[in-house]
């Protein structure tokens, strides 16, 4: 057998082993999460090794427990979801509103200091969240925003703005200049051109960016912990789950139901817009 033949066979087989392994490590944790969320805690403790749920154990009580408000003996995840949704949607709106004009300017217009500003927007991305955590914590403590969802949304804007500008800019440069020139000839002012021509054309990119921002905000944990930990009414889902899983009062299967609830919105959104998102993120990567 020549070396070429050997390699052909070896890598041919190895490829399937790798594919099976990847499928295993990515899907099994999610499967495990769903299975545990559907059984009562006793059956987990009796047989921790079991990875399916029998018909007689199957329960949705865990979900009811985790969603019910605390006043009715539940864990209040419905309220947490509402908080998370408010913060995330607010972040998306604010971030896009702040990112669109800037990314349009640096992708289209030549202006004094344009290249420096564009470099700065990217450089900001390199600063660690921990470096921002301290001053923002102090700033909001002073402004009285430290225990509010508004403050949290502002922090998330800071976290997501640089990458949003980057994603939008990458898309805007692909829109041909001639379309805008045509609009200008038809008598559109700059602002009108942006509103009537550029924004509709950039809709896929706006959606991809918005989704990405939503995911970051929905998944965020550090700042929610820093700002809201003392105020359980304002907890986001991430924070609520993390805080409850530290204790021992709430059973693990109920919390598993909480994890499923926390995970489902982002995963659904992601699959709904997968192509949009992966292209938005990696555009530019394939140009070397």
């Amino acid at each position, binding site marked *: 057998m020549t070396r*070429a033949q050997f*390699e*052909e066979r070896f890598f041919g087989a190895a490829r399937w082993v*790798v*594919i099976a392994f*990847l499928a295993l490590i*990515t*899907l099994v*944790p*999610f499967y495990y*999460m769903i299975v*545990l969320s559907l059984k009562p805690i006793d059956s987990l403790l009796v047989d*921790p090794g079991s*990875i399916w749920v029998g018909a007689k154990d199957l329960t949705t009580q865990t979900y009811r427990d985790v969603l019910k408000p605390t006043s009715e003996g539940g864990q209040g995840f419905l309220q947490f979801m509402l908080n998370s949704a408010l913060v995330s949607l607010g972040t998306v709106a604010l971030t896009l509103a*702040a990112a669109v*004009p*800037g990314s349009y*300017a*640096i992708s289209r217009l030549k*202006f*004094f200091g344009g290249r420096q*500003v564009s470099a700065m*927007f990217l450089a*900001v991305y*390199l*600063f660690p*969240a*921990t*470096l921002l*955590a*301290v*001053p923002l*914590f*102090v*700033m909001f*403590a002073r402004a009285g925003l430290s225990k509010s969802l508004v403050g949290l949304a*502002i922090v998330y*804007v*800071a976290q997501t*703005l640089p990458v949003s500008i980057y994603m939008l800019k990458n898309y805007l440069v692909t829109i041909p200049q001639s379309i805008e020139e045509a609009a200008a*000839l*038809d*008598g559109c002012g*700059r602002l009108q051109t942006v509103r009537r021509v550029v924004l509709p054309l950039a809709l896929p990119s706006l959606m991809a960016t918005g989704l990405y921002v939503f995911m970051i905000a*929905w*998944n965020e*944990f550090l700042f929610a912990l820093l700002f809201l930990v003392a105020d359980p009414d304002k907890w986001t889902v*991430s924070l609520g*789950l993390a805080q409850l*899983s530290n204790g021992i009062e709430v059973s*693990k299967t109920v919390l*598993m139901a909480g*994890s499923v609830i*926390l*995970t489902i919105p*982002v*995963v659904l959104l992601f699959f709904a817009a997968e192509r949009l998102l*992966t292209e938005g993120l990696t555009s530019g990567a394939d*140009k*070397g």
Partner: protein
Amino acid sequence: MTTTHSRTAGKPAPGTEPPDGGRPERRPMTASRRENRAGLAFVTPTFLVVLVVVLIPIMWTVLLAFQDAKLVDIQGMGVFGNWTLENFADVFGSAGFWSSLVTTLIYTAGSTVGSVLLGLVAALALRRPFRGRGLLRGSMLLPYVAPVVAMAFVWEVALSPQYGVVNEWGKSLFGWDDPIAFLSTRDYEVSLLGWHFDIPLALLTVIAFEIWRYFPFAFLFLLARLQAVPDGLEEAATVDGATISQRFRHILLPQLMPVIALLCVLRFIMSFNKFDDVYLLTGGGSGTDVAAVRVYDFLTSRYDVGAAAAQALVLAVILMVLLGLYFKFFAKRVQEES
């Protein structure tokens, strides 16, 4: 259209335009001036937001690092004043600073190399179409998009010595005698071929978690780049008798190198500052006290804003030095190789 034409064709208002033929030369100048004005107008709102929520806080961190600031008296304190260098003495002198730095570096390097490598292997395996590739491609991104809190919780339960599936299966499949506490064992003694040595189990577990969570990121970028490699190159090499490994080494790898280098830098920066993953899995205990968790501890358990800022600043400086070294010595070589 008619309005623009009538305006340019109409007589200039007296006094604003010179009566002689100076206009044709000034036209391009005004167009670029107008563009300059529009550019500044468009960029200003974005710039202001970045300034207020990102740049000013970062500058303030630098100030705070040199001030004696506790959270209780920060309310009445001015932005300037109370200068001190004690925070840095605190940071460098405190127990565990250096060991925490070493832990951070091991954690960062391990998870960077691991996730890029696994992402590369995954991208190569999924390069050619097969049935169900689209589905697998989508589901492989799940660890990356799913919330870190939920994922950490699932790992925690799965690895638990009391009710975790991993220990249960380990007992029945591999004959483990005792359940292994993956997340709270600092050093785990293994014996291999008569040798006994300790491995930092908890640290390795959080590194594994980080690799698992971020290999999809590398995979995504590498797959996009792989699919842009022209088929002709590889076909020519195959005709010339190059084997698969040779084609990878001499054709694919040089094409991928810039993306791999970029991914390594990005992942290094992200992991170096990583807080959530470690905090959620181990709380920074059992030999996993990465630096970002220490910043959090300074801030919340001691309410020492100055020391937290100093620690964050020291971290950022170390990161910048490492990146500077990288760009000075390696970035050029990667460029040349490709």
